[in-house]
């Protein structure tokens, strides 16, 4: 392991972008950061709100049409190497909003799954996932960051 990989393994900045789910996943991600019980920083992951600083983008929610452009843009602003973690059923498959529609047939408001819009490296299922699942999802993408050129 070169110095590069060690440095990348030891300092990871994660950014959360919430694209219009129900808040549940969002709060659980915040819980993984702000609840001392889960404490994401012990895994060398630091929370940031600046895409220029981030390495890992945590996406929650079902991507409503107003959030498509900001999501793409934020993703493009993150310097390489970067990884995306999709958290929650909304981000993975659109959840009830996309799949349990009444007479409307197709819900055109929802652009989920997230990997339609940006490439996703790890998926965390659940509605809502537990914070430990989210932590594991973030830890899973670290090898990808380390191996990147």
């Amino acid at each position, binding site marked *: 392991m070169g110095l590069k990989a060690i440095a990348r393994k030891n300092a990871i900045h994660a950014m959360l972008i919430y694209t219009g789910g129900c808040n549940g996943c969002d709060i659980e991600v915040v819980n993984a950061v702000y609840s001392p019980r889960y404490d994401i920083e012990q895994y060398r992951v630091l929370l940031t709100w600046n895409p220029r600083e981030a390495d890992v983008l945590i996406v929650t929610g079902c991507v*409503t049409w107003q959030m498509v452009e900001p999501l793409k843009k934020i993703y493009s602003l993150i310097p390489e190497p970067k990884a995306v973690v999709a958290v929650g059923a909304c981000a993975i498959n659109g959840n009830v909003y996309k799949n349990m529609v009444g007479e409307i047939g197709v819900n055109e408001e929802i652009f989920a799954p997230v990997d339609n819009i940006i490439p996703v490296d790890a998926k965390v299922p659940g509605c809502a996932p537990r914070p430990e699942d989210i932590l594991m999802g973030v830890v899973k993408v670290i090898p990808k960051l380390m191996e990147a050129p």
Partner: protein
Amino acid sequence: MSKKIIEKEISIGPVHPALIEPYRIRFFVNDEIVEDCEININMAYRGIERLLEGLPVEKALLITERICGICSNVHAWNSVRVVESGLKIEVPERANYIRVLINEIQRIASHLIFFGHAFEVIGHETFAYRSFLLREVFMDLMAYIGGNRVMPSVPVIGGIRPRADLTDTLKRVILERVNDFEKKYKEYVDRILADPMVMSRLTGVGYLSKEDAIRYHAVGPTCRASGVNYDVRTLMHEYKPFDFEVIVLTEGDNRARIVQRALEIFECLKIIRQVIKNLPEGPVVNRNWTIREMPFTTAYFEAFRGELMHSYALDSQGLIRNYKVRTPTPTNLAAMEKACIGDHITDAVVTIASCDPCLTCCTRIEVVESGKTKVMSDIEIVRKYGWRR
């Protein structure tokens, strides 16, 4: 009144550390002072009212529960209450008690999230960590009872899911945790209220007078902190068996809105104790009902942020027609848009956070038609303009 001088606009959101949820605030400022502001809450629009059109009523609660992950139980319960009151479906006493229990547990969790968020916005990281730590108690309880920390999916038509039935062990665990929590929580509240630096940020900022609270239809803790005594729980038959007080403060500033919630948590604890003490025996779900046509029925509920309305009709096959939701945040936000004028921007963000905004539920569209503005919900929009803008 002299004309306001507006120097410039500073807009933040929808991706922003202080908001978390996607919404956009445009502050119109003069130097540091906010002269006007506009909040755009359209980013989380998922068209829930449309999705519900034509869905079997048993499934409604699974979508309404997902209106919001903070007060999932409130929405699920209230959408069930509509059909229960419309079709006179009886709910066993025990089920009712457990619904109240889950609701009060979630109310505490929600208020603690509010503290966490408010302190984060004020910039006090340590208090935010402490709030989230206290909250873990209730998240755990929710996971024990309902199977998930966020979406317990407890109510169903005619009662609750039997998975959420309380056993004696669970009752003991709840009581223990609650007692333990109360001790720590008292310390926490004392510590916060004694902190001069935090209080200097909160006291006297974001003042909402009683008249304004009434004029802008503020609801829930926001109006109760401005001296309006209004709590839907006092009118609900579900809450008849329980003894609790409505906390009303008159200061109307950010500090009052925090203290109001802090005190309300003690009342919630009181209700939880009563549930555990008086929990009646019996079945938890009544499966003996038939769905038939139902006229337009409305149910009101005291959600954690104020009054919540759900209403719909059922057609002859038991499918939902014309679902309407009115959540507390839009009216509270309108009040906050007013309350933050005249403060520094940094304080204004705190003021907006102090009504505990969470906008995933409250998108409405204002239609401007030949000079007249009209607020419409999405069902009305589809009726009038078709599916896609």
